[in-house]
């Protein structure tokens, strides 16, 4: 078992045998490492409300809030039962069945 303070190798982290880092992907990462985020200049992230006085920016201002979900808009915390066909298909997709039971993989040993 790997303790939290130990470095977990990529193959174990990804559950992919023999996995290692890729040269092509590392090149992309190097670009990010070298980049210097511009916190104050032209490319600085906009402060919230920065463009409130500019009516032309109304769509953008609204857009900033588009993906925020207000508490009152949250989906009700209820159980939605799926239909019989959906249940049947979920069972059909289960990788292994025996004597009417869905067979799970080995149990977690550690």
């Amino acid at each position, binding site marked *: 078992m790997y303790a939290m303070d130990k*470095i*977990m190798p*990529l*193959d*174990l*982290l*990804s*559950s*992919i*045998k*023999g*996995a*290692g*880092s*890729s040269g*092509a*992907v590392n*090149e*992309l*990462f190097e*670009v*990010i*490492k070298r*980049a210097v*985020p*511009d916190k104050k200049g*032209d*490319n*600085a*992230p*906009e402060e919230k409300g920065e*463009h409130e006085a*500019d009516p*032309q*920016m109304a*769509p*953008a201002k*609204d*857009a900033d809030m*588009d*993906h925020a*979900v207000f508490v009152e808009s*949250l*989906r009700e915390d209820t159980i939605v039962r*799926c239909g019989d*066909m*959906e249940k049947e*298909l*979920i069972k*059909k*997709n*289960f*990788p*292994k069945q025996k004597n009417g039971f869905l067979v*799970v*993989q*080995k*149990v*977690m*040993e550690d």
Partner: protein
Amino acid sequence: MESEIRNIQQDLQSGRITCAGLVGGKLRELEDSPHNTANFLLTETAMEKAEEVDRKMKAGGEPGLLEGIPFGLKDVYLLQGSPASASSDFLKGYISPYTATAIQKLIDAGAIPLVKENCDSFGHGSSNENTVFGPVRNALDRELVPGGSSGGSAVNVARGYTVFSIGADTGGSIRQPAGYNRVYGLKPTYGRISRYGLMAYASSTDCVGPISRSLEDIRILLNIMSGKDGRDQTTIASASIPWEIFKEKFPANGLRIGYYRSFLEDENLDPRIREDFMALVDILGQNGIRVKALDFFDTELLVSTYYVIAMAETASNLARLDGTGYGERMEAGTLKEGYALTRSTNFTEETKRRIVGGNQVLSRGHSEEIYQKAGILRDQITGSFNREFREVDLIISPVSPVTPPKIGSTMDQPLEMYLSDAYTVGFSLGGLPTLTSPAGTETGIQITAHKNQEPTILKFAKYLTEIV
């Protein structure tokens, strides 16, 4: 404005053609096609539905907006009772237990699903070669790639095998194949169409979108699929786009358009595409449009920022695929070995590369240095868009730096493949609506507006058909 959907419906209503004849003909074309666009043909259900439509039409029933229109869907969408493989060995035998919201809306309007379309596995690719069903072939030249990852969808539309297809776009996967096959492909504003029932690649940029030969059909399909959905809480409310937008005289005078200097100065850009693009800029200027070069991030930084975020998200999203509840399961001595064997055997090399890359940037040490920094850069990119759209109404750009490469020529060069997304990924990071129009250059142009400004994009695309 020409609409293929309306033309077919008129033919069905007048009795000039039958729906069974139409659907049967398209299924035969797909089956005989040398372009390898179909992972699964939905022959039985499609023919049943077509016969139902014929009976309804004969009885004088009121047709739905898409009544009897056969369409294709990328094989990453769930459609109850049909296979959904994501072009992977992992899910080759998987049957969708429910139907994606966007697809259900099309079916409710009368459309008939015809084919689950070949694509890059889990959306991971820009050439449609990363698929266990074999590469898709370009609609115009079978030796060339069709683009990806929605390559099968774009080719089906371009060849007329489907009236329209529904692709999915995370970093350009609708827009690039639309350009490579010269059809329209729209990535709407992020959240405009529900992602429920779309297999997740990178959830913060994944978008559902239509591919069509007709601009009017893009409008119709966008209206039908849009809307808030309780099953995807990132969805946004949006207004329906009226057909009259194409009737209005487009206000060319006073329209402000920008293009990115860094894209045009990109050393990887094909000189023919550069020349054609700049010729288009001249034409726009001659028509009274103010066109302005804008400063933007260099393409290498855009691609790197996008791939860091996309890989991190795909590593998380695909962690659920371990053979426990569905998909292929390989048995091994221990549970962990079983997971590892299952995942090693059933993911493609490109998918594994992205999962490993994602876990790399999410791990301690790398997270601060790479993943979190990419998040800051993404905010900067978004901030830059906000500022630019105070100065311009639209941004136009090439779709891709290169024309479609030969099949097999870039598969072993992943970096080259990633860089081919240079002009599409920035708009994905910003969540902006972008349309590929098959105009201007050999691979078309992208037309981008600020969030929720799809009507301006569509009007300008129509205007382009008049002046180019």
